[in-house]
């Protein structure tokens, strides 16, 4: 597999832009970056003896595009208490690596550090690894799959009402 510098920069820009849309709460614009068959999963990591198979993952979310749309629509109702008053978020995306490229599909790994403020003294920072499938289409790039692994065996944030 060979990926050019330009391709890498384009993927990087795509991830930055996507994070920025979420931090700026432009959720509907963010939705337009998803493919129709979009899949989104979030895991915690269980605290178990070492094996060669890697960490044991605990599923805490498994969504398709339709469920994701409902999730976004919810944020525009008057009753999304978990995010109303609105959180202040700041996403740092780093350690971006294109693991493979087959035809127009890129498998991309990245790290996410997400700080959230909810108007109180509780410090909330999510640390997560992400495995994305990003597809090159005519008008640019789209996200078709995202697996998020929150690197915690006991979730210490009050909830996961944000998109990671």
């Amino acid at each position, binding site marked *: 597999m060979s990926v050019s510098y330009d391709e890498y920069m384009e993927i990087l820009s795509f991830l930055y832009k996507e994070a920025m849309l979420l931090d700026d709460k432009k959720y509907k614009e963010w939705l337009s970056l998803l493919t129709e068959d979009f899949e989104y999963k979030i895991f915690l990591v269980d605290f178990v003896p070492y094996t060669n198979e890697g960490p044991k993952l605990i599923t805490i979310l498994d969504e398709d595009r339709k469920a994701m749309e409902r999730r976004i629509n919810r944020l525009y109702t008057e009753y*999304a208490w978990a995010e109303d008053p609105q959180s202040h978020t700041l996403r740092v995306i780093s350690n971006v690596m294109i693991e493979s490229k087959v035809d127009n599909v890129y498998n991309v790994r990245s790290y996410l550090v997400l700080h959230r403020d909810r108007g109180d003294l509780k410090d909330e920072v999510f640390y997560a690894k992400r495995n994305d499938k990003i597809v090159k289409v005519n008008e640019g790039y789209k996200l078709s799959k995202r697996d998020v692994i929150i690197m915690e065996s006991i979730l210490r944030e009050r909830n996961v009402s944000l998109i990671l």
Partner: protein
Amino acid sequence: MPNNKIEDILKSFNPEKGEVPFSLFIDNEIYELELATVFKKSWLFLGFENMIKYPGDYFTTTMGEVPVIVTRDQNNQVRVFLNFCIHKGMKLCRATQGNSQFFRCPYHGWTYSNDGKLVGVPYYEPAYVNNLDIEKQGLIAVPNVKLYKGTIWASLAEKPKPFDDFLGDMKLYLDLIFDMFEGNMEVYGGIHRWLLPVNWKIPLENFAGDAYHAPFTHASAVSIGLRGAYGNNVRILYPGEGHGIVSVPGGLARKAVDIDALTPFRDRLSKAVETLSQKYGEFVKNMFPFGPLNVFPNFSMHFTWNYIIFRVWHPRGPTLTELQGGILVFSDMPEETKRQILRRALHEFGPAGVLEQDDAEVWSKISENGVSIRKGSIDPKLIYTRGLGMDVEAEKVLGKGAKGRIGEYYSDVSLRGFYSTLKKYLTGEE
């Protein structure tokens, strides 16, 4: 001083009149008394037998804050031990689950077989040979363990109330769920652990009897079409002994979206209604699947047409709770059905669920507020008077075979029952 404080709080704690002091959810003195009474004496739910299917399988959990290992030994016997090396007190088993015939302490290497026997002590000869009766030593066993229809329970009390008396009429309702599985109960997708900044009693109210919060806290579920309107067919059932059920008979969730893939699950439930109503009475048809429930003190389930979830609210401090939750499926169902049940359950419940994320916001802000208010030595009485004196025999509403008292959807009948039972423990009557 602290004892006077507890006395004062208990004096203003009159659950039968619907009076519950706010301090009950905030103060450390009350919390420690709960650990020493409720969590010491009561039966506690530990897990499902399916979680330790084979000899050597184990998982770790807590009884109150007391860490325990639950394991199936090489002779297929389920055993519960304190997660504690008798030599120097090290936490013997640090993983949440695994399979091992032995537990070996990382500190000095003392080793126990999974039936609790001490089988290895480094330098036993010559150091301990005359000073330690190795045959008589072993892991400290939790004195009472009960296996019930695929579930594992234990009590730290030497002589707890008999298990059947502890369940009381709740047994009937748990049997409806456990019998339906016919031994095919499986925890699917793992146990998620989630630290909630709230007293353990507050979240379980939603399961034990607070249907009243749903139309407000979960209004968004209607706006986004996840649910139809919240119906007034919901009833609150109090089976006694501190347990509670929110009965959401049939209809509500049936209108829900994304359900095609759940057909095999729903078919199984429909079939179960027939067999279970023949076995237990006509009332089953009027309340199946019956929605959220809580077994005193801290084991909750939610039983719907779409999924069956469970939650254990482990106390971790006066305003801290570790939720351990998961999803139950029929083990003989197709893999795809299991996954669809899981995804549907997690869409609503769990840290990212569109329903429970709002609950968590409410819970966290009750605690934040509560700690501040208690610093001012203010202790308002919270109001649990909904539907006081309006509940009737369950049989009158649900039909033949039902047990317990029942109230309208807004009733606090089961919450008054929960707190009355809690008070008995706190005052030494139970």
